[in-house]
Structure formats: structure tokens, C-alpha cells
């Protein structure tokens, strides 16, 4: 099985949201600033609950905040891609 790499757009989304600080985001989602920094640097994968909270803080769908790459190829998470892989 190919290695799945998770990337995220939190840093970009923060700047697009009035240059929101890491601390402000951490307070909004209920974690520490250090955890937000670790997630941004891809040093920590958040739980599904925290990932959803972060997406909700930006008003974006989860797939817009967290992206999956396998062998340099971006993997789209959608109902159709699930159907394709199930076939």
C-alpha cells in the first residue's frame, strides 16, 4: 500500500481570515497554540474531532483544509472517489 501523506492549508486559511493568529485559532478550536503549530508543520495529525473543529472555524469543508497525497499525487475525497475505489 502506498504511503499516504496528509497536508493542510491551515496557514493559508489563517492569513485569508484576517491574519488570524495560531493562538486565536487554538482558542477557537480548544487546543494549544503548540498543537496548531505542529499540525501546520505536518508534525502531528489531529484527531477527526479536532480536524472538523478546525474546518468549522474557517467555515470550510474538511477536504478543503486537509488534503491527502500518495506518491506526489493529490487524492480527492468525494463520494465518487469512494465509489471508484470500491469497484
Amino acid at each position, binding site marked *: 500500500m502506498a504511503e499516504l501523506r496528509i497536508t493542510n492549508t491551515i496557514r493559508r486559511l489563517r492569513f485569508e481570515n484576517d491574519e488570524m493568529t495560531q493562538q486565536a485559532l487554538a482558542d477557537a478550536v480548544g*487546543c*494549544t497554540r503548540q*498543537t496548531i503549530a505542529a499540525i501546520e508543520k505536518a508534525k*502531528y495529525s489531529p484527531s477527526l474531532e479536532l480536524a472538523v473543529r478546525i474546518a468549522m472555524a474557517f467555515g470550510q469543508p474538511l477536504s478543503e483544509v486537509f488534503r491527502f497525497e500518495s506518491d506526489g499525487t493529490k487524492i480527492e475525497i468525494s463520494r465518487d472517489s469512494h465509489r471508484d475505489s470500491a469497484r
Partner: protein
Amino acid sequence: MSHQERASVVAIVICLLLNGYVSVRLWQLYESGALSGENAPMVWAQSIAWVVPAAIVLTIVSNIGFAIASKGRKQKTNIDERDHLYRSRGMCVTLFVFALGFIGLLIGLATGWSVVISLTLLYASAALGDLLGQCVRLASYRIGY
């Protein structure tokens, strides 16, 4: 450095200081012959018993010291899922090493080691387990994952 990372560093320093002193003290007792004879387990226990309260007092004092030193700076002391994960990871290592020491104690007693040597082995595994657990926790914060 977050509050939790700092707590790990403090725990490592306290662990090294206390157990370094205990090691020297036990060696002195062993050299003087106090750890042989009928009263040996009692002498051993008396020289170890103060370690736990001393560790608690030192941790409290060092935390108060850090709080005074960082007066005026905004300190966030809340704990989140990452802290819980790294704490659990460190705890796993601590328990694994302690379990090895316990098995060593059983084997030692079964094969005729003295009670004091076996208890020292158990104490050493607890101390080493604590140290390694804190190191794993700190490394997790520093390296990630």
C-alpha cells in the same frame, strides 16, 4: 517551549538528581556492609523512602520557581489531545521498563539473589522507566508524531 515540555524537562532533571544521589547513597551503604544482614531490607527502605516525597516537593518548588521567573508573560497551561497522546506514549515506555524490572525481581528472587539486590533492581527499573518515559515524551514534542 510549552508548559508540558517544560514539565518534562523538570521531571528529567529531578529524576537524574534524585536517582543519582540515591545510587551514590546505596553504593556507600553497600561498601560499608550495611546492606547485608537481617536488617538490610529495613536499611534499604529507609534510604529510599524519602525519594517520592522529595520528588513531589522538588516538582512543586520548581514549578513555583518557573511561574515566578515567567511573571508577566502569558502562560497557557491547558492540556489538549496531543498532550494526552504524548503522555500515554511516555507512560507506555515507563510501564514496559518497570514490568521488565518486576520480571527481573521475580527471576532474581527465584534464583537466590538477596532481597536487597532484587529490590534495588526493581527500584532501578522504576527510575529508568520514569526517565525514559519523560525522554520519549519530550522527544515526541520536539520531533513530532
